[in-house]
């Protein structure tokens, strides 16, 4: 009885719990991919509508991969790809013992901007993998599942992304 309840995505409460657990991840993934917030929300809705329609066929344990599969297969051509706009947390500087003068502040600000621009210029694949790791703190294994590629391929993308970011940032100088 209890198990049935837990496994049934058709159950409104379970469905909502699945939504609470995975919706943001899907939203962010699509945002990193296309930089369009409406598009990301649309992806979330489409994926969850499909999940609801097929709730009898999809066990709870498969819900996550089902959602990402549906989302990946969506074609949302009506939306424009945009630049991924990112925000930084107001955080402590990198090295506290170093000089904290106005120069340093400016330099930090400058670097943040360069990093953001460099991220925007990454290829869609590299950017998505990179931001899923850096922002959503997904493991390479999780990213591999989301993107439906191998962990090795994720590592390769991360490697390339880092190299590319470094080159771009240094080129901005």
């Amino acid at each position, binding site marked *: 009885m209890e198990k049935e309840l837990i496994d049934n995505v058709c159950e409104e409460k379970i469905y909502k719990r699945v939504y609470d657990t995975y*919706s943001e991840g899907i939203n962010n993934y699509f945002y990193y991919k296309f930089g369009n917030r409406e598009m990301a929300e649309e992806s979330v809705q489409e994926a969850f509508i499909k999940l609801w329609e097929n709730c009898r066929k999809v066990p709870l344990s498969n819900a996550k991969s089902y959602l990402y599969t549906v989302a990946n297969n969506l074609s949302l051509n009506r939306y424009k790809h945009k630049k991924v706009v990112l925000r930084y947390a107001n955080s402590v500087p990198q090295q506290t013992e170093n000089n904290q003068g106005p120069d340093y502040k400016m330099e930090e600000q400058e670097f943040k901007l360069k990093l953001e621009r460099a991220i925007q210029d990454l290829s869609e694949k590299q950017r998505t993998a990179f931001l899923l790791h*850096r922002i959503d703190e997904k493991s390479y294994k999780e990213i591999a599942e989301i993107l439906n590629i191998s962990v090795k391929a994720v590592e390769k993308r991360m490697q390339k992304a880092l*190299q590319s970011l470094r080159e771009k940032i240094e080129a901005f100088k």
Partner: protein
Amino acid sequence: MKENYNLADWLDNKISDDLLKDTEGFETLQKIKFYSAQLQKPEFRKEPVFQELKSRQNKAHKRKFNWSIAASILLILGFSSLAFLFSVKDFTSKINSQQTVLLPDESEVFLAEASKFQFNNWFWSFDRTTRLNGQAYFEVAKGKTFTVKTELGNVKVLGTRFDVEARDSFFKVICYEGSVRVTYEKEEVILTKGQFITYNNGVKIEQSNVYSEKPSWISKTHQFVNVSLAEVMHELEKEYQIRTDISNVTEDKRFTGTLPSDSLSLALDILSKTYQMNYTIINENKFIFVDNVKL
């Protein structure tokens, strides 16, 4: 050669800074790692998106629901039109023969020779409409409007006895009891007991009186096919305006045969022989039947 994704490993904290400190641009890489970790998640309107999603689901659900309603309506329409078609009962009397049709409400129709009569069995309780081509005498049970449609004109009654003849261009209605409303082309005439009206080729020929109780064409015999004794007696009671009692008769076989409708004594004799029973006349119109016990 197996590729080495050392930067990826380092970013994922699998290897320490020391192993990479000679890498080109390591300082920039460190900054990338450090500041990219400070990036914030994009805004996500979690609850509003869920509410929108729900309302979209409901819409989709409604659309589906409407489809199923539409489908059911179509199905019902389909079935009822089928039922309508299949529940239409057709009767055609041959030349030189008559036919009696009993309608669901016990109204009786005596079909004259070479006539066609039609009614709908299922929808009878909603609509007492019949179609006639030829001639028929109606004894209609009281109830909703009873309509006889012919190609020439229509007759509407509530419950009465009348005769309609509609053949080729000849249209005649005789009212034997109560009143009937006759519609012929745009003309409407109400006939009362003993009146008749005839039209030929669209022209009213006559409107006058009759003095008989029933049309003369109706056969002097009454046919029964596989009916119980009680049903036969019921018919006789109506036919001759008598009362009968068969509560003491044990024989229960069904009757098929012809009984005269103009000779009560002959009819009773035939039945007595068939069912091996005797009858006692209580008075002029009351008869009691008992088994014919052989001594």
